[in-house]
């Protein structure tokens, strides 16, 4: 598999007059062609900032502090506005967290589907209509809605339309930032399965961001768990599901109920995420961790250890295993 996206030491956050919020810290990962990467973490852990930062859409007060984003051999962060604009949608598209409100309320769906295609390609207008119909059919929305305005569509339909729009130029990567959060679980599942089907059909890669780990386990190839702006564990989803190594991943995995089996008590994770305006010495999860080692975890930052091929974790619990495998 060829690597499509390389993110290295990515730091981003928000600069306010009185403080600086370091929302994403030293994030490094790779994404292959056709890979489905899920990024999970609780609200405020920097998932969305990461997604917007990679796409170069972090508007003030948001800012990328440092790092590299290499997409298909091109460094996105160093690109000029105009060349980045040409890349957008054509090479990578993004589906927003609040997809309900991303459609312009006073313009027909048709016109909003057409403008991106028209700007990036020179498709003649009689083909535009056909293409738009084809796209809507892909996501199971009747083509008659091309003539409709956004408020005439239900939430699920708007979401599908946005996904259809994201597909319109056959991009290599689609970043999805909690695209199904506002929908009920049945529709969520439905849309996810469709996305996966489309991915298999067209072969694009997906970065899927959600706070709902249960959604990811089933559908993604790889899962990265984010906490306080950092990736704390990354593994193929089957491995992560079977054996979450980081105490935080373990906590997340056990905070939703299994569908089958005995009824059991659910365990949440006590406490709150740390304040991102301050620098954290040691492991960011220290305060809430049930397996913390006093004197180690609060002093030194854990580094990444590859436990198995493809399964990395940043936790002092596995320091020894890391050393032994290094030998």
């Amino acid at each position, binding site marked *: 598999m060829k690597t499509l996206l390389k993110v290295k030491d990515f730091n981003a956050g928000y600069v306010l007059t009185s403080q600086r919020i370091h929302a994403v810290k030293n994030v490094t990962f790779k994404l292959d062609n056709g890979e489905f990467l899920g990024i999970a973490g609780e609200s405020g852990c920097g998932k969305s900032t990461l997604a917007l930062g990679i*796409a170069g*859409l972090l*508007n003030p007060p948001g800012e990328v502090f440092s790092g590299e984003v290499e997409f298909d051999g091109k460094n996105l962060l160093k690109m000029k506005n105009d060349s*980045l*604009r*040409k*890349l*957008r*949608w*054509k090479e990578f*598209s*993004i589906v*927003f967290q*609040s997809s309900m*409100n*991303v*459609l*312009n*309320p*006073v*313009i027909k769906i048709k016109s909003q589907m057409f*403008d*991106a295609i028209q*700007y*990036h390609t020179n498709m003649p207008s009689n083909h535009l209509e056909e293409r738009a119909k084809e796209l809507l059919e892909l996501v199971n929305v009747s083509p008659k809605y091309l003539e409709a*305005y956004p*408020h*005439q569509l239900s939430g699920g339909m708007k979401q599908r339309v*946005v996904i259809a*729009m994201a597909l319109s130029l056959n991009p290599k990567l689609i970043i999805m930032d909690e695209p199904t959060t506002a929908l009920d679980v049945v529709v969520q599942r439905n849309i996810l399965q469709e996305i996966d089907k489309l991915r298999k059909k067209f072969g694009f890669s997906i970065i899927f961001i959600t706070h709902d780990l249960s959604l990811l386990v089933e559908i993604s190839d790889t899962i990265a768990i984010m906490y306080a702006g950092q990736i704390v564990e990354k593994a193929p989803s089957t491995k992560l599901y079977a054996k979450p190594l980081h105490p935080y991943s373990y906590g997340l995995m056990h905070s939703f109920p299994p569908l089958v089996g005995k009824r059991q008590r659910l365990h949440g994770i006590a406490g709150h995420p740390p304040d991102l305006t301050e620098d954290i010495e040691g492991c960011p999860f220290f305060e809430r961790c049930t397996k913390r080692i006093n004197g180690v975890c609060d002093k030194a930052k854990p580094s990444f250890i590859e436990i198995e091929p493809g399964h990395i974790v940043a936790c002092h619990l596995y320091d020894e295993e890391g050393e032994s495998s290094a030998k």
Partner: protein
Amino acid sequence: MKYVLKRITFFIVTAWVALTINFILPRMMPGNPAQAMIAKFHGRLNPQAIHALKIAFGIDVQKNLLLQYIDYIKRILTGDFGISLSFFPSPVNQILSYAIPWTLGLVGVSTVIAFSIGTLLGIRTAWRRESTSSGIIIPIFLFLNSMPYFWFALLISYLFAFKLKWFPLVGAYSLNIPKGFNLARIASILYHAILPACTIIITATGGWLLTMRNNMISVLSDDYVAFAQAKGLPDKVIEYKYAARNAILPSFTGFAMALGFVISGALLTEIVFSYPGIGYILYQSVLNLDYPLMQAIFLFIMIAVLTANFIADLFYALLDPRVRTGAE
């Protein structure tokens, strides 16, 4: 279609209510136009003449209120507003039909220009919020906007008309030029309109600018603008098709209201420049207790505002599809 019918019904009912109030108000005030007229002649009128005046002004105390009301509606529908006191014996509609074109031309055109410039600047200054030009433009227009416009009118008429003599001091056209449709007259009219128009445009633009800029800034943080950016659309398309297209909706209502009030004239500007528009006439009628003229002017203002609102509602439906279906 249902929407249009609803608007029409609303229009008719409001117009009727306003007409009725316009009928009741003068009758609740002490005195009546006939008395005012009689006072003007210092008792040198004989009883027959007084009676004739009362009938002429439609204030016949012998008739009961209902009959008067029916009479009043009848006269309005036929466009008969009686006889003016201050311009006696010209009928009111003759005075109005003379003054309305001047006001529409001067105030109407300047309002449209002020709205266009203000809105465009509002869009630009919101889009380029951080730029120095925005930082300069906004305080200047805010300052001009907060200046009393009659004072500003006095200032520029003193400076450019009285001191420098670049522009005429008063009036709407030069009396030396023959009447009728010829180039010299049109040029003269435009020449006379420059100063009063500038007063209105310069002082009013700031208001439109601020409204539009505020709308724009709130729309710019909306998700569909960010999404348009993610689509890699050119800045101009995002600025106008996505941001300004939505931000103009609230401004548009204000603009329609302003157009409705155009007919009332820019009272103080017209007085300062002795411009023969409705504002000037209204001022004269108030000075002379000219009830029939005042009543007719108020009636016209009211109908104009209602009509402007009605048209704005229809246009709004074209601009905002959500209004049409009544959703959200």
